[in-house]
């Protein structure tokens, strides 16, 4: 065998083997040594790998349907940021979506996935005979993992954060899916690890809040986590020209819900009012405000009758 090819292959194989070994050591002995070994091995290339692995998880969610750079670029015009997860219902647990809008207001379906999440659709590029032939060999329908198939995404999420512990999206995605799969203990451990690695991330506090809300119904604790998320958001976005309003909307929405659940209607109203200013669908938020004010009136009126 010629030397360059052998070297190339041995490098690939060596990297994979070392990654496997490092992950195994990580599992057996603890994380710090493992992280430093990966850092030494891959340097800043870790971030590229992390993003690739997270995109891979997204592809797994769509059973192999994988948007290319070209498709993403074509569809990205007018689109938005990588979103935090956490909205309820629908396909809120979509893995990663530069093209997916998960920013709808609380209380609604997060988004109509099949309309908004177009990146998993076969893209409409030039239609020549080679493209038509090639299309017959690729996964050609927009489908999602079903039932316990969700677990198939987990290795890529884990690998993404191993590669880049500051990849907040990967932690948020993992936290969401572990929660969805009923692995609350693993979800909490994963998000706590995320918090240690990213202490200033509002997204992680938000995910922790969601986890608390859904698994323990400890509204007080969830509310505190959302307030911390708000503080972190303000610290990170205060001086930005284009602050991350989507993340803010999500935090405010959930915070309002928690206040509502605890009967703290004034605080909830305050959150909704702020939310209305930043939400892409203020009408929907106004409807929620109207409902809340109606309920507040109902609560007050028996008192006044008395």
């Amino acid at each position, binding site marked *: *065998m*010629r*030397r*360059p*090819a*052998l070297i*190339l*292959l041995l490098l*690939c*194989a060596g990297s*994979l*083997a070392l990654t*496997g*070994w490092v*992950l*195994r050591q990580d*599992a057996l002995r603890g994380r710090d040594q493992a992280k430093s070994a990966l850092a030494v091995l891959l340097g800043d290339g870790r971030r590229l790998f992390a993003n690739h692995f997270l995109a891979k998880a997204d*592809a*797994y969610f769509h*059973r*192999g*349907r*994988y948007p*290319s750079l*070209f498709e993403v670029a*074509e569809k990205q015009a007018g689109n938005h940021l990588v979103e935090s997860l956490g909205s309820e219902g629908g396909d809120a647990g979509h893995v990663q979506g530069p093209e997916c809008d998960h920013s709808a207001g609380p209380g609604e379906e997060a988004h109509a996935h099949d309309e908004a999440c177009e990146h998993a659709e076969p893209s409409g*590029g*030039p239609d*020549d005979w*080679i*493209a038509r*032939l*090639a299309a*017959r*060999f*690729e*996964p050609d329908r927009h489908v999602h993992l079903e039932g316990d198939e969700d*677990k*198939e995404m*987990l*290795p*890529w999420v*884990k690998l993404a954060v191993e590669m880049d512990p500051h990849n907040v999206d990967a932690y948020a995605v993992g936290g969401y899916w*572990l929660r969805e799969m009923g*692995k609350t203990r*693993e979800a909490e451990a*994963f998000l706590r690890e995320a918090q240690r690695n990213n202490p200033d991330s509002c997204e992680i506090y938000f995910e922790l809040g969601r986890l608390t809300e859904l698994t323990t119904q400890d509204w007080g604790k969830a509310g505190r986590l959302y307030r911390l998320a708000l503080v972190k958001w303000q610290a990170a976005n205060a001086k930005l020209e284009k602050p991350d309003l989507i993340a803010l909307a999500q935090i405010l929405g959930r915070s309002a819900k928690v206040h509502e659940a605890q009967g703290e209607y004034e605080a909830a109203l305050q959150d909704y009012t702020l939310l209305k200013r930043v939400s892409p669908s203020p009408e929907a938020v106004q409807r929620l405000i109207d409902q809340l004010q109606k309920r507040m009136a109902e609560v007050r009126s028996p008192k006044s009758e008395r």
Partner: protein
Amino acid sequence: MNRVFAVAAVVIRELIRRKDFYVLFVLTAAITLLMGSITFFNEDDIARYVKEICLLLIWLATLVIAVTTAGRQLPAEKESRTIFPLLAKPISRTEVLAGKFLGCWLAVGITLIVFYLFFGVISLAREHELPLVNYLQAVWLHWLMLGIVAALALLGSLLMTPAANLSIVILAVIGIWTVGEFLNRVAAKAGGVSGWLIYAVYYAIPHLEIFDIRERIIHGWEPVPWGAVILASGYALVYMAMLLAAAALLFRRKPLT
């Protein structure tokens, strides 16, 4: 034809007696088993990521085997001067070339079967099912793709030094594999003369990505329609024939001394 098979048999025997294949197979198996032994979030029956890694390694290993085996055939014959006693026999250069190609292609086919048997065992152990039709399609399409690669490497070996041929063929294959299918989009965007040039490249290159159905077998999609498989087979055979015809023309005119 017997002469072509005789040359092919020597190529296969050479591959069997060299260590390359065994080293690559052991590496593939070891890395797959190592990666498969890792547990994520206490889930110990995750299958697709192990299948993905195993298939990626199989693709890399067989690509290297195909390019190195095909790329070294003619230069090694010339370098070790074995070509001289061979051509002193009643065999034409075209037959030698055809035998070399056939030998490489069959040898790569044998390695593919061994690699995919391992993949089948891994898949069966993890998922407790073996979609045979899908796997047969995967092996067949992969083999066709490697046939094109072997023909390309043989042609390259007549034009370049072995090291340059190896590097350029591997880079070209990976380039076609990853961006070949998007050249039409780039051409459409570029427009004008450069657009036409990119279109020309798009239609000239063999679209190796067609033969890659890894996503389908990792994620358990239904088999590819057989009509498409037949079309792809024809497409591959046309490219192999064209590349070999070009190689034969060159080889017939190439001075040996």
